[in-house]
């Protein structure tokens, strides 16, 4: 009897309820598909990831020309320049300037390192040619 009554309540749902339900489910799945497609596209974009003292400080897409000053609390700095799809360090406070002399990087997994300042710039999602292109 109770079961039957519950069934009657279930039938009290209007047609609009079912439409609403279906619309929300479809919208949720569409939004989910859209978001995962978008993040798939955006994470494939090559970008320079900056680490200071092992911690990620920022991500800069190689597609945009930009100059970033990476300053640290102790006064040391590196200036990262992204131009023409390549990243390089143009100026730095470090004594050896190895990072400044490093050629511009754009390949997958390539990096710019400044040991005195504990700074690392790493390329993510870059082209796979990388080192081979340099040594060919």
């Amino acid at each position, binding site marked *: 009897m109770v079961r039957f009554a519950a069934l009657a*309540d279930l039938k009290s*749902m209007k047609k609009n309820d079912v439409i609403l339900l279906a619309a*929300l*489910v479809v919208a949720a799945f569409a*939004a989910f598909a859209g978001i995962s497609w978008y993040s798939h596209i955006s994470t494939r974009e090559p970008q320079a990831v900056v680490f200071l003292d092992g911690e990620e400080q920022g991500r800069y897409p190689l597609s945009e020309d930009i100059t970033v000053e990476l300053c640290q609390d102790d006064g040391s700095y590196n200036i990262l320049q992204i131009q023409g799809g390549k990243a390089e360090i143009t100026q730095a406070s470090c004594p050896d300037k190895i990072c400044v002399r490093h050629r511009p990087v754009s390949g997958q997994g390539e990096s710019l390192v400044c040991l005195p300042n504990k700074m690392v710039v790493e390329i993510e999602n870059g082209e796979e040619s990388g080192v081979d292109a340099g040594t060919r």
Partner: protein
Amino acid sequence: MAKKTAYMGMLTALAFVFSYIEFLLPINLGVPGVKLGLANLVVIVALYTINVRWACTLSVVRILLVGLTFGNPASMVYSLAGGMLSLVIMIIAKRGNLFSVTGVSILGGVFHNVGQILVAVFVVETTSLLYYLPVLVLSGTIAGVLIGILSAILIRHLKKAIQADGQNMNRKEE
């Protein structure tokens, strides 16, 4: 009036206990904010068996009580945002008369989550939280269906009980 007060007190206590149960048994699906919303069951019952004003009072009192006992000011703000948006939407949906209790409950569940996400985006200032939205819309919908069907059963029995009581509960729908 006395009976109405007693009824309201009972519903408030029930909503409070439901919140506590959900606090004790959280559903963990890896996305924060997924929950059944048992307390909404009581708010919907109040909305349909008493009136809008008392449903609002019930909702606010419950959120304040829960916030003060199990939560903190931050969680209270999130609950309040979700609860109020959900309540406003449910009142509009009920007046629009397009949906049954289940439809109203679905909208309530979904907009509770939407309200919380909006506040979270505002507080944390990252739009990346919107990535949670599809999952929360879906979970809100499912929770809304379940709570809606339960509400329909409860409302039918309660209305019968109220009428059988012969008490004039002054059940104005507006």
